[in-house]
């Protein structure tokens, strides 16, 4: 299992476009990928699941992946967060 926590730094948080990018990326991995925020754990491959979190700027999210490419999955997803979902460049 691979796991890492990250703070959301893009202005709009996990809004629809960002959530779509995130679920799209998560779906490119073979591993199961989850997001944990407060008490909630959702499937990162599900757009609807991500949207139910209402996670916004300043909130911490934990990314958990389990499977063959778990390390790469966490790494790439962290990168997407760090790049602010490529929406503020």
């Amino acid at each position, binding site marked *: 299992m691979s796991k890492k926590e990250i703070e959301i730094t893009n202005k709009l948080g996990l*809004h629809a476009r960002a959530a*779509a990018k995130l679920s799209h990326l998560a779906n490119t991995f073979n591993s199961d990928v989850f997001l944990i925020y407060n008490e909630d754990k959702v499937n990162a491959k599900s757009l609807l699941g991500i949207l139910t979190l*209402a996670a916004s700027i300043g909130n911490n999210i934990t990314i958990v992946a389990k499977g063959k490419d778990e390390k790469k999955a966490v790494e790439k997803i962290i990168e997407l967060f760090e790049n602010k979902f490529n929406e503020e460049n």
Partner: protein
Amino acid sequence: MKLYNILKPDMIKNDCLNTNIEAVLKEIIQYLKEKKMITNDKQILNKLLEREKLGSTSIGNHAAVPHTKIKGLKEPILFIAILKKGIQYHDKDKELVHLVILILSPNDTPIIHLQILAAAASLIKKSNTLIEELVSNTNSEELINIIKKYEIKDE
């Protein structure tokens, strides 16, 4: 946040007969303009359509959440259109959209916008029978009751 708490009876309709996304959104925006809830209807419609071009807001389970932010808006506007016949919302969609949840948010309240979006996603995620129940009802109060029933389920 729950949708039924902020949804007003005159903001949910089951009588839209349009069969494409642009016409459906146009009809809703015109209705909001007639109710004097918005003024710049053309600009808002364009923004909604532009947003769809960036990536479809159809999010599965026969539902779509078209949305945009509007400068100067005092509070979010939520409108639900139920489409009995369903529409091909986006070229790539494998299923028809029967439930359109339109969200217009002030541009300076991203957290409230996320909360409404989350409430919509939670509702949509819950059940496919929701759509069946909604399309077979026309009374606004009854439609809100159905939404409420699903929103408070399993709590």
